[in-house]
């Protein structure tokens, strides 16, 4: 296993270098003037020229890239053209809220999606199956921004049950330690803030969970139906195994590999794909940061975002593959 991990890490390095070069080139050839963005609106020509020199934008592209890589290796991710803050600081600021939101939503989405899929497969062809499939279709088909706004109108404006937006109430403050509000408020033993943070998570997490619930339900149902036709399932039933054990132990185990992969991909995609949900719920997260950075071609931030996402894909896929080897003894790491 160790050699497999080492090989994958080495391969990942090539991937990261390739991604960084490609992203650097794309951001630099896209029509924009980062120097003008840097100095602010209504800048004069002299200010823009001065900024261009300050930012090193007057140097040849290969030199700029090498300077960037050199800084990166020393832990300097550059300064965001848009926020004027170190990119590392921005990533530290905006990544935890999104990770917290995704983890919270997946915590409910995965078991709910799997359960729906199992029930749907077990009751295949019945109204229960049709209903579950309709729910799953709604989950993957409904636009996230629409769902977000509907939840706000129903649960905030009409019923007044959940907060409209944000991570906590406007006047609530929690000392920032990790950036994960649930953890920070727990460490500070600030139970009101912890409760407030949990309550604020509900609507955005529900919105974000819709797609994984639908996706996992459909995938679980389809894979389960294949597995349920296998001989070992017939044997299990023949020897009198309870139906619940047949579905949730014998059959589901064979679906886990597919579910793991799907969950991993959904998680990493959501890092940036959550920007619609973050925008509607005013959630200051990584997705919004990425969207804004791309819109203004904030190239240092885009490089940082791409690096984080690429590393996430690599690391999580590696963990996924290792986990699959544990879950499915037929798999050999090679």
């Amino acid at each position: 296993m160790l050699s497999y991990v080492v090989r994958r890490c080495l391969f990942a390095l090539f991937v990261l270098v390739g991604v960084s070069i490609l992203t650097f080139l794309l951001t630099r050839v896209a029509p924009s003037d980062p120097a003008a963005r840097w100095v602010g609106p209504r800048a004069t020509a002299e200010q823009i020229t001065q900024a261009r020199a300050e930012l090193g934008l007057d140097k040849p592209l290969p030199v700029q890239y090498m300077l960037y890589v050199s800084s990166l290796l020393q832990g300097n991710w550059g300064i965001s053209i848009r926020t004027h803050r170190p990119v590392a600081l921005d990533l530290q600021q905006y990544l935890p809220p999104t990770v917290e939101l995704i983890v919270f939503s997946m915590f409910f989405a995965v078991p709910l999606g799997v359960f729906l899929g199992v029930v749907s497969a077990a009751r295949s062809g019945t109204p229960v199956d049709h209903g579950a499939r309709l729910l799953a279709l709604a989950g993957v088909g409904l636009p996230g921004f629409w769902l977000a706004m509907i939840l706000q109108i129903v649960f905030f404006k009409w019923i007044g049950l959940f907060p409209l937006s944000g991570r906590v109430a406007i006047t609530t403050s929690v000392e920032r330690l990790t950036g994960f509000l649930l953890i920070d408020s727990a460490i500070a033993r600030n139970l009101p803030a912890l409760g407030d943070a949990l309550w604020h998570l509900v609507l955005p997490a529900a919105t974000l969970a819709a797609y994984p619930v639908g996706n996992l339900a459909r995938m679980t149902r389809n894979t389960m139906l294949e597995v349920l036709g296998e001989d070992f399932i017939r044997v299990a039933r023949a020897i009198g195994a309870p139906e619940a054990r047949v579905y949730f132990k014998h059959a589901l185990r064979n679906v886990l590999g597919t579910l793991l992969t799907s969950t991993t991909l959904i998680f990493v995609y959501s890092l940036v794909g959550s920007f619609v949900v973050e925008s509607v719920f005013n959630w200051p997260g990584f997705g919004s940061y990425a969207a804004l950075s791309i819109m203004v071609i904030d190239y240092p931030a885009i490089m940082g975002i791409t690096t984080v996402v690429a590393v996430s894909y690599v690391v999580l896929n590696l963990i996924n593959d290792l986990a699959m080897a544990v879950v499915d003894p037929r798999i050999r790491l090679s």
Partner: protein
Amino acid sequence: MVMMVAPALAVSAEEVAVYGYNSDPIVFWDPRDAASDETIWMNNVYERLLHLNFETGDLEPELAMRYEVSDDGLVWTFYLRQDVQFHTGNAMDAAAVRDSILGTKNRGKGLAYIWDAVKSVDVIDGHTVTFRLEYPAPLGLSAASALGAFIYDPKYVDEAWYSAGNDSGTGPYAVKSHDGTERIELAKFTKYWRGWDGQHFDKVVFLKVADATTRRLMVESGQIDFTNQLPPQMIADLGRSSSVEIVKGPSFQNLIAFFNTKKPPLDDPLVRRALAYTIPYADVITSALGGFGQQSRGPVPYGMWGHSDRIKQYTFSMETARALLTAAGYPDGGFKLVLTYTAGDDIEELTAQLWKSALAQLNVELEIRGMPWESHWDYAKGTDPLKRQDIFMFYWWSSYPNPYGYLHYMFETEQEITWNLGYYSNPVYDSLINTANRLTGRNQDEAIDMFIEAQNILMEDVPGLAVFDMQYVRAKNADLTGYVDNPIYTNVVFWYDCHRK
């Protein structure tokens, strides 16, 4: 009434105001560099020598109790208040004012150019400071500018110190905390020179709320006290809510359509004049702006000095347009123009669409391209004028209340393309506005006449056209009192003057 079912939080006796803003309130931390949205909180943390009252046009005392101007307009003397303290604990004096202004000017960032006329700043005594100018200039307007004129503690000039969330202002509020660039909280500065008698807010929170629907719901439910820039279509609905008050006021923002004067057929002034007659101004105001604005009369917007009824105004007249096109050699139209605007701006898009429909009547095809701002601007600065757009549409506004800010940047000859996006060059015009600018400090009436003459040159040559002057429409908590709309301090609420009924 919305009932919030949430875990009970500690009840605070403090009065906290919340401003929900459509963009990041924090762009720059350093008061010398400020040029953007940070104006909304910096104008509560920092102060300047003078304050411009929009309604009366008077320059009112702020950190300077009074000022004197020499007859030749070259020497301005400010007499400072003696009881002002910076948030850092140091006292404000003439040396601090001198070092503040020169620090901003010499750094050359943000709105440093508003001090271009300043040759030297001298300390006369502890609370008297004199500015000597290279040429007569309206220094009072510079001293009252929304940005670039802040008096800060010059002993604190470290960028990193500011970026860590510190401030060195004299204003009623000081920075208490911030969260990234999206939230900043100010707390009252107990030693503020105006004192805290009467009703005032103890804290002010500035919060980014990008989504307009969310901002609307927040102001309706009382979660925010004030918000800016809601779509016109939302305003009508919101105005029916008893908990919300809509505030309309003039702005110094207008929509400009530049014509590419270097590319046929727009290199012909006759064609440009013809196009000026094809914009359905009334429909644009009604449909695109929801009625919140008026047709421009020259590039200097309504309410700014230098705006005048003596400036020519185009009307919507297809007959006149057709006649001009015929005179230019296009009796049947038959050409295509590319118009670019900033993608995502519904007002610009609808304006372009209405214009397109009108031009179609003359057999002129208008291709409309929405582009991200960076690409939009970059395209207009391409090296080959024939490959650039034909019409460039964007908004212009100035934080510096001087018509020169409009006429110089957008229409004076440029060596390197920046904001003159009609690529216009007219030495007579250039000379006129620069002479007027230097005259302003000595004889404003004569300067105004020259600015009007310059604008009429633009209306004849039509390198670009101001289509409409916008009205700003904002929504606030109906219980919030004390807010005075002042387009010079765009989007700024002076929270010290406000309280809830």
